[in-house]
C-alpha cells in the first residue's frame, strides 16, 4: 500500500499516465537496485519520492498546482 502511494506521488496526484509511469519507474528501480546494491532497494524509491516532491511537487505528469 505504501508503495502504491510512492508510485502515485512520483507520477503525480490525479494523473493516470503518471501512475503508469510511476509504477514502471518504481518497479524497474527496485529490480535494478537489487542487482546492483540490494540494500538500496527500498531506499532508492523514497529518495526519488523526496526528490520529486522537492523539485516538482505536482509529480512528473501532474498539472502544476495553481
Amino acid at each position, binding site marked *: 500500500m*505504501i508503495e502504491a*502511494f*510512492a508510485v502515485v*506521488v512520483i507520477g503525480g496526484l490525479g494523473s493516470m499516465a503518471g501512475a503508469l509511469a510511476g509504477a514502471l519507474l518504481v518497479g524497474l528501480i527496485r529490480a535494478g537496485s537489487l542487482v546492483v546494491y*540490494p*540494500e*538500496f*532497494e*527500498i*531506499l532508492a524509491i*523514497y*529518495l526519488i*519520492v*523526496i526528490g520529486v*516532491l*522537492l523539485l516538482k*511537487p505536482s509529480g512528473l505528469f501532474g498539472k502544476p498546482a495553481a
Partner: protein
Amino acid sequence: MVPILAPPFYANLLVPFFGYAIALLGFNLLFGYAGLLSFGHAMFLGLGAYGAAVIAGVLGISAVRGRAGRRRRWPGSVVALPIGFLCVRYTGIFFGMLTLAFGMLAHSVLFKFYHLTGGDSGMRVPRMRILGLEFAAYNKIELLAGPFYYYCLALLVIARSDHVAHRALAVRACTCARCATTPQKAEYLGVRVRQFRLAAFAISAVYGAIGGAILGFRTGLADPELVYWTHSGHLVFMTVLGGFSSFLGPIVGALALTLLQDQLQSDHAVLALRARRHPANSGGDLRFPAPGFAGIAGGLMGSLCRRKREAPA
C-alpha cells in the same frame, strides 16, 4: 502512587505511556499548534531509541544523568533541522507526503543495512546507570515497575510538559496558531512563519527522540518497527483520540490507546484460547464474545439510540 498500588503488570504497561506522552507533547506542538500533520514522526522515536542503543551499547557510555540524558537529544535535532528545512516549505498533504517519505527512508536504512543497524533484529539497548545508581542487580520488571524508575519518568514528563508549556505556549505557539489559521495574516504581522514551523518541527523531533529512547529502554531493543509508517499513524491516532490543540489532550490519548491496545490484545487472546478449546464451537463463542470495548461501545450506542427515540415523544 502507581508503582506502589498497581500490580507490576500495569505499572510496566504504563512505561510506554510515558514515552508516548513525551513524544506527543512535541508532536502536538507541530500538529495542533503549527498545523502541520507529519506522517513520519516515528522516525524521531526510532532515532531516539537507536541513539540510546548506540550511545550505551556501542560507545559504552553507561552513565546517564536523568532519564533522558542530554546527549540523546542530539540525533533528533541534528537530523530534524535539514529535513525540517526542506519540509516546512510545504504544508498540508505535501508536508505529510514528504515527512512520510523521509520516515520510510529512515526505516529502509535501519531495515536494510544489517552491518550497521542489525536490520530487522534491531539493536540492543543495554541497561544504564541512572543518576549514578547501578541497577544491574534488579531484574527487568522490578526495575521498570519499581518506584525509582517510575518517579524518574513521571518527573521527566512533568518537567517536559512544563518546559513545552513555558517555552512553546508562551512564545511560539501563539504565533504558530496564527500560522495554522492564516499564514498570510501572520506574515503580514511580521511573523517569520517558516522559521516558526521549523522551530516547531525541530522541537517536536527532540521530544520524539526522548520518547523513543524511553520506549527503546523499556523493551531493551531498538528495532525498525519503531520507525515504520504505521507507528507514525499510531502517534496521529493518539493525538486525535485525545484531542489535538488542547495541551493535555495527546497525553490522555496516549493513555487511552495504550490501555485499549492491551485490553483488546487480552480479549483476543481469550477468544483465541476458547476457539482452540472448542474448535466446533468457536463460531458460537464468537457470536457472544466477552463484553470488551466493543460491548461497551455497543451499550453506549444503544442508550444513545434509546434517548433519541424518547426525545421526540
